[in-house]
């Protein structure tokens, strides 16, 4: 079973006035697992449904191995899909669910039962063939749905937030399982998710979508370390926005002079984007910084630090929390490395208030 190359060309889709896809171009390499990541309404599910054939783009084309399948009906496409909600047929046993696609293709009973058993073994549930969907847990149901999608040996696998209905522990074990299967079968996979951790931990490449357009597509490390746009920076992981002043290709921020990475805005007043783990904190009774809140996370602790009229988030090693308890005066510095900057727009400032400092009393 080999993966196919999937190409999205200028996909455009309009739902009664809302633009779900606004000219999406993307090429997915054979055998690759790509995650579509974005806030709800960014068009990631619509893009996936265009590949599955449940949605017709107003403009643009979907190509699989250079063949245009835009107008091919959903039941004639070579793509298996796992849905967000439980989608097993309640009236059929697990074995018959897995063999459904084979039955549609009129494969002989003995052969399709053997194949169903083989797939149940593949997903690690060899003994549940005779049971019915309502007798399984949510995680087991999604595994069976995966087996069912793989039964026809499709060349593309489509996963529409298959883990979002499951609890945290099952979610993590199942995502490893999906990745393992995907790698061993070498099947091209599109994984839609709004969970950045899921996207970063599973995917070969992550495509960040915003308002129906591709914001950035890159491997997880690049996406996290070198986000192409402020939107990506803010959406993937947590970002501090600290006021700074540009001079040439350097920027002065918190009294430090750091090189600017990427584009330098025209205005001298900018916001510098810094990850919490790039903020260093040391206790200093003379400094202006003060720890407001400390939330312990085991290996690390996240501190919220007041610095004059701005607030900064910092991740410090978990064992430092006693030294850095709320109320402690601290000195804050940034790791010496190139930083991203964005023009200090009023809209960006409101994003700082909402994104950086959670305002629980805002109605």
């Amino acid at each position: 079973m080999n993966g196919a190359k999937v190409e999205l060309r200028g996909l455009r889709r309009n739902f009664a006035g809302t633009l779900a896809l606004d000219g999406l171009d993307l090429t997915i390499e054979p055998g690759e697992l790509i995650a579509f990541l974005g806030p709800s309404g960014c068009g990631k599910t619509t893009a996936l449904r265009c590949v599955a054939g449940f949605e017709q783009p107003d403009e643009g084309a979907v190509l699989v191995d250079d063949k245009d399948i835009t107008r091919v009906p959903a039941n004639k496409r070579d793509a298996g899909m796992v849905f967000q909600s439980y989608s097993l047929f309640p009236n059929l046993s697990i074995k018959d669910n897995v063999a459904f696609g084979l039955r549609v293709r009129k494969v002989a009973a003995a052969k399709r039962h053997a194949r169903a058993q083989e797939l149940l073994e593949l997903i690690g549930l060899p003994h549940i063939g005779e049971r019915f969907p309502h007798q399984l847990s949510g995680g087991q149901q999604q595994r069976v749905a995966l087996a069912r999608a793989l039964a026809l040996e499709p060349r593309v696998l489509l996963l529409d937030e298959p883990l979002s209905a499951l609890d945290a522990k099952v979610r993590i074990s199942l995502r490893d399982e999906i990745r393992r299967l995907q790698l061993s079968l070498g099947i091209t996979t599109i994984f839609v998710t709004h969970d950045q951790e899921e996207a970063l931990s599973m995917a070969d490449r992550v495509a960040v979508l915003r308002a129906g357009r591709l914001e950035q597509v890159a491997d997880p490390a690049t996406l996290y370390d070198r986000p192409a746009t402020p939107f990506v920076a803010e959406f993937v992981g947590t970002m501090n926005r600290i006021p700074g002043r540009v001079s040439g290709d350097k920027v002065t921020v918190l009294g430090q002079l750091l090189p600017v990475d990427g584009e330098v805005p025209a205005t001298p007043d900018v916001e510098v984007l810094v990850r919490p783990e790039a903020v260093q904190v040391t206790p200093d009774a003379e400094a202006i910084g003060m720890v407001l809140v400390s939330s312990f996370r085991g290996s690390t602790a996240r501190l919220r630090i007041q610095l004059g009229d701005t607030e900064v988030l910092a991740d410090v090693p978990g064992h430092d929390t006693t030294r850095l308890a709320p109320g402690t005066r601290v000195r804050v510095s940034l790791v010496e490395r190139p930083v991203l900057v964005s023009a200090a727009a009023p809209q960006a400032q409101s994003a700082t208030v909402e994104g950086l400092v959670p305002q629980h009393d805002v109605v």
Partner: protein
Amino acid sequence: MAALTPEGPMAPLTPPAMTVADGPTAPTGQGRRRRIRVWRGVILAIAAVYFLVPLLASFMFTVKAPEQDFSLDAYGQIFTTEGFGQSLLLSIGLGVATIVVVLLLTLPAMLAVRLSMPKLKPVLEVVCTLPLVVPPITFVAGINTVLQFGPDYLASTPFYQTIFAIQDENFPVVLVLAYVILALPFVYRALDAGLGAIDVRTLVEAARNLGASWPHLIFRVIVPNLRSSLASASFLTLALVLGEFTIASLLHFQTFPVWIYTISGSQAQVSVAVSVFSLLITWLLLLALSSAGARQRSGS
């Protein structure tokens, strides 16, 4: 019969109101609870009297004979009375035809609305519920006018022949058409409840994704998962057709209820015996249906 049956099978579809009303009273002490229990008993007793007295009275009437205290003669006569088999078969035939037509009409329409035009759902709901507020007498007056419409210059056209054909005494298609309309509200409710209980869109998309054509998907995925609501819709329709009197009578067709009415003039005892008998059949059907429904629920 028509008045009684529509409520029957609807009961399992709606949650029992009693237990809900019972909930908040639980922590407020013994006395109140006892009072509620007493009231519940009183209401049950009133309902029982209301429903059982006419039934018992009918039964007593049928078993009374001039010389004996008890005789089942009237029940024996049912089967030998002229026209019994014919009218019952006609009514059952009309019932089956109505079920087939009404299901073929509503199920695809409801699926299509749910899947691709959810905004039209209220429209479909109103259209399907409308027959409830149109009295059968109005309905039949309209049908009669249409059937009598026929200017001479149309005499040699297929229109005329169609009008005649649908009034064939052996199988009046016009009654099937009328009953389909009357059954719409009940069938709509039953199917709507069934469709609401399954995630139709996901099941349809999953089946499409696995290569199923539309007919395959409807018969192998949708219908099996709607078994109990399809059974309930069919039963309601059958009960309605077996009990419908106004339209059949005014259009002069000898259906089962019309036949009961006709013989009641000459053989009052037999006609009441037939009513009791048909009630029993209806109850048996209802029992079979609800136990089938319960089996399905526990199985899925």
